[in-house]
């Protein structure tokens, strides 16, 4: 197991190098640079000399390969460089937002898990009854309605009472009530879709498992139906759901662009959009690397969880 984990971690390195090469050179194809946007984006009457001076300061005047090498050396030392827009370290820019994004992702996962497991199980156990139909309606609704749209509906409902949650982030360790009052709504908005995907996965997976020989055997042995479902069927049916949940969780870290805008959340998604609009290459590169690393890590965790849920799976 340890050997497998170490080898998987080592395999992350070529994956991340590949991502680094792609993101660096693809960004350089985009026309324009951060200096023009920063100095002239609002109509500034800035001389060409100053634009060139700023480009030089940011190292944009150096050959492309030199810039790449410089960045890669930094990466090897876990230094993502400085944002070209704010001059602050990229890691600092990311960490400020990561706490919020991570918390929304965790809350949405909790929300989705708490709802999807019972809903998916009930829909499978009561297949083709009104319960199944109701769950189908709820889950298809979740799949069809974009998260940001659901978020807008939530906001409209709250505004009906002339109330809106706080729009500035308070860490949970400072004031848990203020924190949850702000984040519970976006977590619900994205959690609904997350829940729908997972519930449907659990339903179909459970239906398949319930027809397996070992379930029939368990029933023939006289095991209570509740135990058959919880101990034998659900445990196996959860495996594909875990994969989906892992991918959804990773997606939530950087993919909540519109939802963050709707709720005015200072998260990674908003930062991504802003850095792209400003051509802040260093920040974009840093975020892509972070999200890529996150995806790879979550996949590793999912693979390891397989072993926990299914004792037949062992990594050697």
């Amino acid at each position, binding site marked *: 197991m340890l050997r497998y984990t170490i080898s998987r971690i080592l395999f992350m390195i070529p994956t991340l190098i590949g991502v680094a090469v792609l993101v660096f050179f693809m960004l350089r194809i985009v026309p*324009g*640079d951060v200096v023009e946007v920063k100095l002239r984006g*609002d109509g*500034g*009457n800035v001389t060409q000399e100053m634009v060139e001076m700023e480009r030089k300061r940011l190292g944009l005047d150096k050959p492309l390969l030199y810039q790449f090498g410089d960045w890669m050396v930094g990466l090897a030392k876990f230094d993502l460089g400085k944002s070209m*827009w704010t001059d602050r370290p990229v890691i600092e820019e990311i960490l400020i937002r990561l706490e919020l994004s991570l918390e929304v992702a965790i809350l949405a996962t909790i929300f989705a898990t708490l709802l999807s497991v019972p809903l998916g199980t009930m829909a499978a156990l009561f297949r083709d009854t009104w319960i199944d139909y109701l769950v189908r309606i709820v889950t298809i609704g979740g799949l069809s309605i974009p998260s940001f749209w659901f978020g807008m509906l939530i906001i409209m409902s709250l505004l009906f009472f002339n109330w809106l949650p706080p*729009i500035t982030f308070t860490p949970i360790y400072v004031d848990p009530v203020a924190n949850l009052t702000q984040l519970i709504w976006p977590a619900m908005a994205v959690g609904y879709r997350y829940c729908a995907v997972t519930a449907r996965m659990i339903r179909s997976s459970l239906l398949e498992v319930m027809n397996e020989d070992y379930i029939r055997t368990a029933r023939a042995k006289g095991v209570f139906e509740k135990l058959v479902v919880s101990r034998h069927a659900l445990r196996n049916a959860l495996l594909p759901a875990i994969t989906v949940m892992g991918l959804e969780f990773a997606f939530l870290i950087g993919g909540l662009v519109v939802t963050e805008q709707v709720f005015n959340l*200072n998260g990674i998604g908003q930062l991504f959009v802003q850095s792209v609009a400003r051509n802040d290459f260093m920040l974009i590169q840093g975020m892509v690397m972070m999200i890529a690393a996150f995806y790879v890590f979550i996949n590793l965790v999912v693979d390891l969880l397989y072993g926990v849920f299914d004792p037949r799976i062992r990594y050697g």
Partner: protein
Amino acid sequence: MLKFFLSLVGAVAFVAAGTGPGAEAQQPKRGGQFNFAISAETPHYDCHGSDTYATLHFSAPFYSTLLRYNLSKFPEVEGDLAKSWAVAPDQMAYTFKLHEGVRFHDGTTLTSADIKATYDRLRNPPQGVVSNRKATFADIDTIETPDANTVIFKMKAVNSSMMDHFASPWNCVYAAKDLATDPNWPKTHINGTGPFTFVEHVKGSYVAGKRNENYFKKGLPYLDSYRGIFTLQAAAMLNAMQGGQVLAEFRGVSPAERDRMVAAMGDQLRVEESSWTLNLIVAFNVEKKPFDDVRVRRALLMAIDRWGGSVGLSRISTLRSVGGIIRPGSPFATPEAELVKLPGFSKDIAKSRAEAKRLLAEAGVPNLKFVLWNRNLAMPYTPAGIFLVDQWRRIGVEVEHVQSDTAPYLAALRAGNYVVSIDFSNLFNDDPTLSLTKYLSTTKNPLNLSRANDAEIDKLYEQQLREGDVEKRKALIRALEKRLFDQAYQQPLLWWHRIVLTHKTVMGWKMSPSHNLGADLAEVWLNQ
């Protein structure tokens, strides 16, 4: 629907009656925290190296300037750090007496040396420092400080715009010792003499300030503290205002956003409107055929029905006023009676378009096709682009409207990779020099998107800059405007209209034609 209509009528009546915050003669109340929205976040704190309102809405409450605009009597100038001033009869020297006992937030006393250090940085930035005002203060020869409270600016040449330049909100006064420590110190640190002291800046979230107990204007500010909350999406900002999370946003909203908020909040909302010191410009790249032909350029300008368009566009966008190169209604603006005689401003649009068609035929391009390069911002660039496509279609011209993100848009314009574009002019006052810089020959100003070089325009620009007599200066500006429009290099499309929404509890804030002014919050108070 009826509720909406009644609310709208109520709000408009409220504005028309002039029941703005300045009009309510109530005794200001001290205290309270004021939360307002800032619809962009500044990349740094340095006023000198910025052109975005995001920096001013962030930094202005922490700083003072030498002079400033009196917003109740705009564009009249009044003292800020300057207690009094005198201009030499030949306009070759400006002497300022400073308020005594002014202290920076770190407790040190402000002296004339701080003013000198600030203006030296503005006009002659050290290596590695960006000053967007270097050209503005190029006419200053020396800065003298005969005593701790007197500063004298001696000029190389007469500059008729100097008082406006001194009143610029971008000239935040920094401490000489801070600049000596690091010329770029103000980019990342705050130490001013303004009404509020810096508390914190949570990146991407908000900036917070609290009352400067040692502020040199006694009794001010009224607020205990404030938070400028970054709300980058207009919808999120409006929701926050409706939900009471923010009480104001000082840049401006669109007519549709105003109507939505009036319908939702009724008499809890204050709506203030003014013409705006911003305009959109139609620019032709004279280096590209057939736009090197003045007939083609002029034909395209003549096809635009600005007077009719302003009626429709003002309902759906922030575009409204028809004007020349100076903001309509301001002291140096061309009166309407004269404006309509200029190419592109005729009220007889049928006649104008017939002439436009004739010019195109004469130039040999009766079925002209081209790409209009525009910025990918919904308000007001998109409606302006669609409007132009329609206007040119009416004289048989086929236009492809391409909108792009700011970075590639600017890159294409700087490289000259366009034929026709929508440009913009972002001003903070009505000073002619500031407005006219945009139209200088491209060899003198690379930001002239037409890429035209016109010695006559440059000469008229220089003459108006050195002319001390207002009427003579006006004549020179008119001559420059006529030359520019006759040659049709570029021309303002429409001027913007500013609409500011505040909760009715927000008092003491003054509306002005520029979103870059009045951001220090010193006189703002909460009536609750």
